[in-house]
């Protein structure tokens, strides 16, 4: 940089501010000696003018007892900063002396981008250190910050300096650099430090994983069970930050009682932090601030994890350190039940649904979140260093927003292991029931709007996937425009009663033609090849908001006898209302059991199916379902449902 008059005046004002006047004496440290400085106001700015620079001399008789200041600057020559600061530390030890450091920041955005793109910086910056590096060296030798006068450039000044051209690359680099380096706007680090004799030494004794658990102190047994599942972990390298949010007196007492009753080895891992005010996002923010692990995972007080939850994250981190870690999760329906022995018992009411057993998909995730929060562990570095924080304005999808903004920089590593269970409480409030559809829709739009603010980098392979998505969309549009029917890919799975239930080995796929009115008729042939099928499963789509009605299946056996079954004997992961099945979630499945212990040669299905419901109809269905579960006066669903 050019040490202009402007900077000289800036320096003088700093020196005045710290009372470094002509009554002070200082030593300017050089690589091979010192410069005695008896009039800092005059002599220091002269250095920056590169005029009348005194010859560097080795001083034999330095009047150390009269030295008030130690100056370290990159103005005169290149320095091995570690050595210089070490010498400064010795000079400041057990004395009143302060250290004044004025150093260019190698990480300043203009320099960093100019070097990155090969343009160079014309040799105008002598610094070879970033602010973070310098802070680390200073901390190493026990210096603590007294005052800061960093020269920071505003965004428009930065853009003017780096803006050789407005390419997309420059735009992305600017965004990335500003995100990953919170010091990127500092052109020169200008600070005063003091040697602290009892400086706390950093230790490496911190856990791998910080587990943040939100609780409002209302769900005792659920919280006990969540803690039990943490005690059962195969890998004990974690701490628990139990964030009591808006606790009342009873809640606080309950939490303390639970902690006191917890097994000692687990109890010593628990740190209870009370959080007041804010919304459901606020405890997460506090938890991340308090976390000390390399990674942070989040559990609600009603979640449970398998015994290798921590172990799987740990294993993944060893290979993909710095990335978000993602594992698989299953969903399961549960009820709270009150029984004669008091309290609230918990009861599982459905099987594990593998909705969240898929790798993180960068493209799909832009539209829909398929990663429950406890299937993820976040590198704490991305929070602390990159400054990616939770958006406390959000009441819903705060996890999706945080996940995506972090993933844009960190990327995601996957382990194909099911390590957690997402419990859906069918008779309790949750965010899905508290907030109406309009809140969800508005928040989703807001979050996507945030994604739009900056360029995004996708991993390798994304181009061809994007092309495929566009082509499928175009194809669907053409079919809808030009043909009376649509074709959908159905999957069939055979369950033979062994351990290979519903695996790809027992699968067939077939395109099914569906009329404009939604009528379909499909046969799956030569099923005797599977052997005796115990159960037949059909997946009519991967989409959500599918409705099936008037469905029937005809099974034909090897002796050519036939058996008809209808909706009354079907199992599904949808909601049955009368003769209709509603699938509000993706991956709908319908299952019939084979009523005979005989080989089936053909299964023929027919009925009506609706895809691609409009938003208004989706909203109506959700409202009906919500009211059906919560209303004291159950009404006839058929009468109010409108297509």
């Amino acid at each position, binding site marked *: 940089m050019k040490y202009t008059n402007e900077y000289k005046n800036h320096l003088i004002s700093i020196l005045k501010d710290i009372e470094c006047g002509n009554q002070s004496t200082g030593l300017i440290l050089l690589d091979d000696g010192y410069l005695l400085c008896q009039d800092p106001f005059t002599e220091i700015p002269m250095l920056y003018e590169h005029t009348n620079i005194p010859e560097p001399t080795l001083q034999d008789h330095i009047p150390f007892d009269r030295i008030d200041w130690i100056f370290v600057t990159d103005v005169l020559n290149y320095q091995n900063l570690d050595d210089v600061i070490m010498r400064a530390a010795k000079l400041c030890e057990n004395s009143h002396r302060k250290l004044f450091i004025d150093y260019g920041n190698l990480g300043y955005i203009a320099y960093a981008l100019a070097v990155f793109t090969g343009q160079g910086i014309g040799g105008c910056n002598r610094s070879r250190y970033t602010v973070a590096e310098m802070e680390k060296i200073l901390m190493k030798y026990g210096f603590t910050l007294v005052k800061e006068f960093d020269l920071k450039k505003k965004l428009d000044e930065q853009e003017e300096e780096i803006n050789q051209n407005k390419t997309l690359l420059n735009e992305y680099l600017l965004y990335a650099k500003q995100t990953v380096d919170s010091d990127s706007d500092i052109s020169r680090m200008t600070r005063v430090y003091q040697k602290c004799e009892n400086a706390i030494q950093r230790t490496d004794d911190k856990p791998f994983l910080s587990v943040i658990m939100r609780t409002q102190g209302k769900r005792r047994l659920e919280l006990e069970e969540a803690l039990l599942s943490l005690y059962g972990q195969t890998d004990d390298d974690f701490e628990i930050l139990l964030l009591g949010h808006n606790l009342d007196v009873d809640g606080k007492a309950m939490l303390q009682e639970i902690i006191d009753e917890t097994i000692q080895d687990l109890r010593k891992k628990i740190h209870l932090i009370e959080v007041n005010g804010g919304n459901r996002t606020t405890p997460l923010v506090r938890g991340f601030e308090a976390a000390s692990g390399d990674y942070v995972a989040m559990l609600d007080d009603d979640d449970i994890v398998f015994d290798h939850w921590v172990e799987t994250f740990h294993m993944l981190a060893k290979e993909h350190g710095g990335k978000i870690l993602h594992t698989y999760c299953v969903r399961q329906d549960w009820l709270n039940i009150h029984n004669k022995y008091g309290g609230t018992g918990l009861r599982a009411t459905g099987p594990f649904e593998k909705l969240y*057993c898929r790798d993180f998909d960068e493209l799909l995730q832009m539209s829909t979140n398929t990663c429950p929060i406890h299937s993820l562990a976040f590198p704490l570095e991305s929070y602390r260093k990159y400054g990616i924080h939770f958006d406390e304005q959000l009441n819903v999808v705060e996890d999706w927003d945080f996940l995506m903004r972090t993933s844009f920089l960190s990327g995601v590593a996957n382990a194909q292991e099911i390590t957690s269970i997402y419990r859906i409480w069918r008779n309790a409030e949750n965010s899905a029931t508290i907030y109406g559809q309009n809140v969800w829709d508005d928040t989703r739009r807001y979050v996507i709007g945030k994604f739009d603010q900056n360029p995004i980098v996708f991993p390798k392979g994304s181009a061809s996937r994007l092309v495929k998505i566009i082509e499928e969309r175009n194809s669907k549009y053409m079919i809808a425009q030009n043909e009376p029917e649509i074709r959908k890919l159905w999957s069939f799975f055979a369950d033979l009663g062994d351990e290979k239930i519903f695996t790809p080995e027992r699968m067939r796929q077939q395109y099914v033609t569906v009329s404009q009115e939604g009528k379909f008729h499909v046969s799956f042939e030569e099923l005797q090849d599977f052997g005796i099928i115990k159960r037949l499963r059909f997946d009519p789509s991967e989409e959500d908001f599918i409705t099936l009605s008037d469905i029937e299946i005809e099974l034909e056996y090897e002796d050519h006898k036939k058996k008809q079954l209808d909706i009354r004997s079907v199992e599904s992961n949808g909601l049955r209302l009368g003769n209709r099945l509603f699938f509000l979630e993706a991956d709908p499945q319908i299952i019939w059991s084979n009523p005979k212990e005989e080989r089936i040669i053909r299964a023929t299905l027919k009925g009506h199916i609706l895809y691609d419901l409009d938003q208004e109809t989706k909203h109506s269905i959700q409202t009906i379902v919500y009211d059906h579960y919560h209303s004291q006066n159950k009404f006839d669903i058929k009468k109010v449902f409108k297509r």
Partner: protein
Amino acid sequence: MYTIQFQSVLYHNDMKGIYKAMDSLANAVRVARENGHEVRANLIYGDSSNQPLIDITEKEAIQKRYQDYMEFDYVFFGFNSGSAKGQTLLAQKSKAEYILVTNPDVIVNPRFLVEMMKPFENKKVAIVEARQTPVEHAKEYDIETLETDWATGACNIIRRNVFEEVGYYDYHTFFMYCDDVDLSWRVRLAGYKIIYQPNAPVYHAKRISPAGNWQPTSAEIYYSAEAGLFMAYKWSNDEYLNQTLEFFENSENEEYIKAAAEFHKREAEGTLPKRLDPKHKVAKFINGNYTDHRYIVG
């Protein structure tokens, strides 16, 4: 005041997991006492591993570790007893009022005893079963009365006098599976009730594959199949027995074929068990299960 024996059968277990389980039992005793229970407990392990898992030094260290909460003992069987025989041998040694039959790696909740002992206020209740987590057993129970048709041997508390009255586990018939179903049905035939306690979660580590289903071992498949045949025979369900035998004999699964062969072998030797419940008052065979299930796993 009550006395309870915690017992389990070891078989080549990882001791880290066993210590966690033991710590949880001791903690449950502590919490029970803090909640007013006068309880005296002892823990005993029967080891059917090839070599002893716990030597004398470690046994003494464990006794000292838990001395404030429970007495500890350890027996090396010297042979692979299976769970049925092993648990029976341990129970026969006890004079306690209650026996906790549990898998050695099951970790109990701090309030385990507080919740599990509540149903025993009813004298007709003979067995109380804990709720397993993270994978709850899908079998049905009455939401109001909490009565259930059978209790798993993974973790349940039984009145010792009832255990003795019904003859403990039928280990001559069952090696590893269905010993608990069989015991439960005999308990119910004797006029007692079995309660499922959803307020008492216990952590029983299980994992599921990315396809979302169980990953049983070859031994588990075999012993489960074999047990199914003996159950059908003993509990007088010839229709189910014949269907299952035919299915196994025509299967390509080696374990199923082996199980069918073992049944016929015992049939020929005359060592099949005495048949019970000819009028099916207690026994239920529903879609391969021994009671109704709330949902299908997988």
